């Protein structure tokens, strides 16, 4: 809301320099977001607290400043109206959602507008002048925070009735093209035949004043905040009046507001006032709150006496009965909406003293805390990946329906059902992701389009399942070369084997018993190249998948000539309890090594051959490693390095016999299919 500083000064004294005035307002909770110097004077654009309807006017802001300064609070001139209780044929309030309702009769004067200097607060707030009654109403709302509304008396059929709307009732709201149906049980102002306005929100076309209006019925009332809020939202009418009422109005203010409008129109526009009527059953509950003086002194960190506390609270309009140990504070009607606890009054005292003027302390801390296992696992996993050149990214948790299509999913597929957003304002937020492959490929496409083809990225992410549960995963994508490329080292393709290496590094770093095998049954299986994918298992349970993404899927994302690989593992698997460390002292002797090479045909894996070798392992076998792979026309030549190690001296004959036994095991298992190579 925009405030004209010079007008604000008419309500209370403020520092002379605009900068100092701004700092004061900031310090009492009226946050000045920007300041502008104009022909009208200095204009502060303020962000007001969402729970303080009373701040939405000059008087409210001035009162807040006065809470700090202790200065005088001045009011604009108001006509003292003598309202009489309305008879049922004039005004009827049929619901307690209207706290108080007043109507003041005004007779049209000359057609002079309000003077420019009077209109300055509206001009400063970019509110255009419409007509004298509307301008006076707006000014009153700006000055005192009391919305008012003018009906053309000749368009009102009988009594004014404040009631709930009935099913199917329509109203033609001001500034709208046609009548709309009003939701049932909306708080409305009506006459005997039609709706005149939505209470606290907006008036209607067929009861509004025009140039031909000669007699005005000026409404000034206070409505239930929730009722106004429901109506404002249901009809999509976020008006100034609604903003004021939905934060809680002041039930003692309607006649004052009507008096201010009357005064402006009488003084400047020749209007005459007629009768004023009041209806509604609101009674001031006279809410009192006890403030424990010692507890409050300790809490706010300022040694205010009970009398000083009382004096400061009266600046905000509270009535206080001070005693040495406690204050009995009566809440003014305008604050019934937000002041209910001792803490609310402590806040007022803190604002009065200044948040920056009280003591700073820090409670004694017995002991710090160590990172949890989860935090430790996240940090160590990230370190493995970062050392390998991966960048952490964050992708959206949702995507569009079109993305689901690009994933090649069809109704009936396991991954087709998604958690669907009910009210997203952008189509890209339509579905909560149930996988992260889409975002990984979108990220790759973005980078490939920018000529960044060597890419290593990862994300700690959640996926969202149709039963509204969430699953935490770690995913990574690599594309291009596994390292570099450097000027004398172009690296090798970042392929599935590379990702397997990453998973093996994680196994070592986290000391978890990850195993690799078939990916059959994994929910992402379909997204991978059938011949270049594998599952990651923990304790026999499928916990992840890795491999090359399916070429068709990659093409669906507009990516050409790239072979991205992707790995996903459930966070829960990474968080598995680490295998305890055990130490075995290495033998002092040097290891003895033998190499055997096999031509392995399609359908047999290197692991199959290795397992066959292991079946005949001697007690002093230390390790079997794959040290070379050579592609033959009809098979793969794989070299295994067999390492022996023992504290005892091993003869060549012993080693050779052990090796031959292992080779015999391979021959027995595979016959001639797996041939020993010279």
């Amino acid at each position, binding site marked *: 809301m925009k405030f004209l500083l010079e007008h604000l000064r008419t309500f209370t004294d403020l520092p002379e320099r605009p900068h100092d005035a701004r700092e004061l307002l*900031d310090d009492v909770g009226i946050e000045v977001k920007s300041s502008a110097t104009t022909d009208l004077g200095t204009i502060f654009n303020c962000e007001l*607290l969402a729970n303080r309807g009373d701040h939405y006017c000059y008087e409210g802001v001035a009162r807040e400043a006065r809470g700090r300064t202790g200065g005088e609070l001045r009011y604009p001139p108001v006509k003292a109206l003598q309202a009489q209780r309305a008879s049922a044929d004039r005004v009827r309030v049929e619901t307690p959602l209207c706290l108080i309702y007043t109507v003041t009769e005004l007779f049209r004067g000359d057609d002079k507008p309000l003077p420019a200097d009077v209109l300055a607060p509206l001009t400063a707030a970019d509110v255009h002048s419409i007509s004298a009654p509307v301008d006076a109403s707006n000014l009153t709302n700006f000055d005192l925070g009391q919305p008012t509304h003018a009906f053309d008396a000749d368009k009102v059929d009988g009594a004014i009735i404040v009631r709930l709307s009935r099913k199917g009732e329509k109203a033609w709201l001001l500034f709208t093209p046609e009548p709309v149906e009003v939701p049932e049980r909306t708080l409305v102002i009506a006459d005997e035949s039609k709706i005149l306005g939505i209470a606290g929100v907006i008036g209607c076309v067929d009861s509004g004043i025009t140039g031909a209006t000669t007699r005005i019925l000026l409404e000034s009332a206070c409505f239930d905040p929730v009722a106004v809020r429901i109506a404002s939202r249901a009809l999509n009418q976020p008006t100034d009046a609604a903003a004021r009422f939905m934060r809680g109005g002041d039930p003692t203010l309607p006649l004052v507001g009507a008096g201010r409008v009357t005064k402006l129109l009488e003084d400047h526009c020749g209007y005459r006032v007629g009768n004023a009527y009041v209806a509604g059953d609101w009674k001031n509950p006279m809410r009192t709150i006890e403030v424990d003086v010692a507890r409050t002194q300790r809490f706010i960190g300022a040694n205010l006496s009970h009398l000083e506390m009382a004096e400061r609270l009266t600046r905000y309009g509270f009535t206080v009965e001070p005693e040495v140990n406690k204050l009995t504070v009566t809440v003014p009607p305008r604050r019934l909406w937000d002041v209910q606890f001792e803490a609310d009054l*402590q806040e007022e005292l803190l604002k009065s003293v200044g*948040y920056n003027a*009280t003591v700073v*302390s*820090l*409670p004694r801390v017995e002991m710090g805390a160590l990172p949890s296992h989860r935090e430790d696992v996240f940090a160590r996993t990230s370190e493995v*990946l970062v050392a390998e050149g991966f960048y952490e990214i964050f992708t959206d948790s949702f995507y569009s329906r079109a993305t689901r299509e690009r994933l090649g999913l069809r109704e009936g597929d396991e991954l087709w059902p998604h958690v669907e957003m009910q009210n997203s304002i952008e189509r890209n937020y339509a579905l909560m992701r149930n996988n992260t492959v889409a975002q990984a490929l979108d990220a790759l496409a973005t980078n490939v389009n920018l000529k960044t083809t060597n890419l290593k990225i990862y994300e700690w992410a959640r996926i969202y399942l149709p039963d509204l549960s969430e699953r935490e995963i770690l995913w990574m994508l690599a594309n291009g070369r596994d390292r570099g490329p450097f000027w004398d080292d172009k690296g090798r393709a970042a392929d599935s084997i590379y990702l397997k290496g990453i998973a093996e590094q994680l196994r070592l770093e986290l000391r978890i018993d990850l195993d690799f095998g078939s990916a059959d049954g994994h929910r992402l299986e379909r997204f991978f190249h059938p011949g270049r994918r594998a599952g990651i298992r923990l304790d026999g349970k499928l916990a992840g998948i890795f491999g090359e993404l399916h070429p068709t899927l990659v093409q669906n994302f507009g990516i050409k000539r790239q072979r991205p690989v992707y790995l996903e593992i459930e966070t829960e698997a990474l968080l598995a309890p680490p295998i305890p460390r055990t130490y075995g002292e290495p033998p002092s002797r040097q290891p003895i090594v033998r190499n055997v090479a096999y031509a392995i045909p399609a359908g047999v894996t290197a692991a199959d051959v290795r397992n066959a070798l292991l079946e005949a392992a001697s007690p002093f076998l230390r390790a079997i490693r794959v040290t070379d792979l050579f592609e033959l026309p009809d098979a793969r030549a794989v070299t295994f390095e067999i390492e022996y190690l023992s504290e005892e001296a091993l003869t060549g004959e012993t080693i050779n016999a052990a090796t031959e036994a292992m080779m015999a095991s391979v021959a027995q298992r595979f016959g001639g299919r797996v041939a020993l190579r010279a």
Partner: protein
Amino acid sequence: MMSTNETINAFHADLTAATTPEQLQELRTRYLGKKSYVKTALKSLGGLPAEERPRFAKEINDAQQLIERELDEAAERVAKGAVAKQIESEWQDLTMPGIAQERGAIHPLTQVNETCMAVMRRLGFRLEEGPEIELPYYNFDALNIPENHPARDMQDTFWLPGNRLLRSHTTTVQARVLEQQPPLPIKVVAAGRVYRNEAVDATHLAMFHQFEGIWVEEGLTFGDLKGTLLEIAKSVYGAHHEFRFKPKYYPYTEPSVGMDIQCAVCFGKDDDCPACRGAGWITILGSGMIHPKVLIDFGYDHTRVSGIAFGLGTARIAAQAAGIPALKPLYEQDLRVHRAIHRGGL
């Protein structure tokens, strides 16, 4: 058989021709090995007349020592020459770029989280996780935001089927912790993604990150709140900055407090400063004492137990630390952006 002098002469001729360690080794075998003149002559000593043996033995020993000494000297000379030759041939152009796997990087948001967590751990806080798909109760009602409360307008919410929503703040985790009523003191941090149903532009994101904490204990004061906030802010931003507190409104705290850092661009001296728009200050976190109603609803005696709550926009801190003018680049997938964030200036 050659005489000793002839053998030495032959050795010198051979030694002059030898230029490699292998040739020297061959000479060592030839002139000092089992079949060498020296060894053969020593074996023949027993066949000589007694009066000739001392002289001849000395002659052979002298010859052996000479050969050994000259071979050792030659070996050293050849080795030095070989190293010199190797060095001369192995010059490397070290102006070429270095070769090593380039490190990647954790995300700036994670870095900020870790920095904040390091501070919070010193104060005894632990990290708690919570769901992102939430019940309205934990996102609103449990936090003193009943249905139709204006504060619900402050957070345009993504609604999901089954009367669920995407959490609009990580305060939901605090509500879940308080609901369990763990023993006091409660010191918990929650961090993670939150969601707002807004159109994405330079300053608005539909998804971003928060970092929040609560400290519930008997007798915590407003001064304790300020002290805790200062401890966090100075650790994250540096102790040399100026900070200030100001009244704010959050439904689940009372009093509510905003914390500002002095504008590092104008230091409050430029009314037209683009960074702070003349305010001289930039808000960095929201906080307050946990609202009495929240404490009551979770079964605490609000006259005895009080709580500190605070929340930081990690994205904003990360952007400020990286010198990024807006939050959106933090959520970009363009690797060039990430490299610029992490390696900028290097």
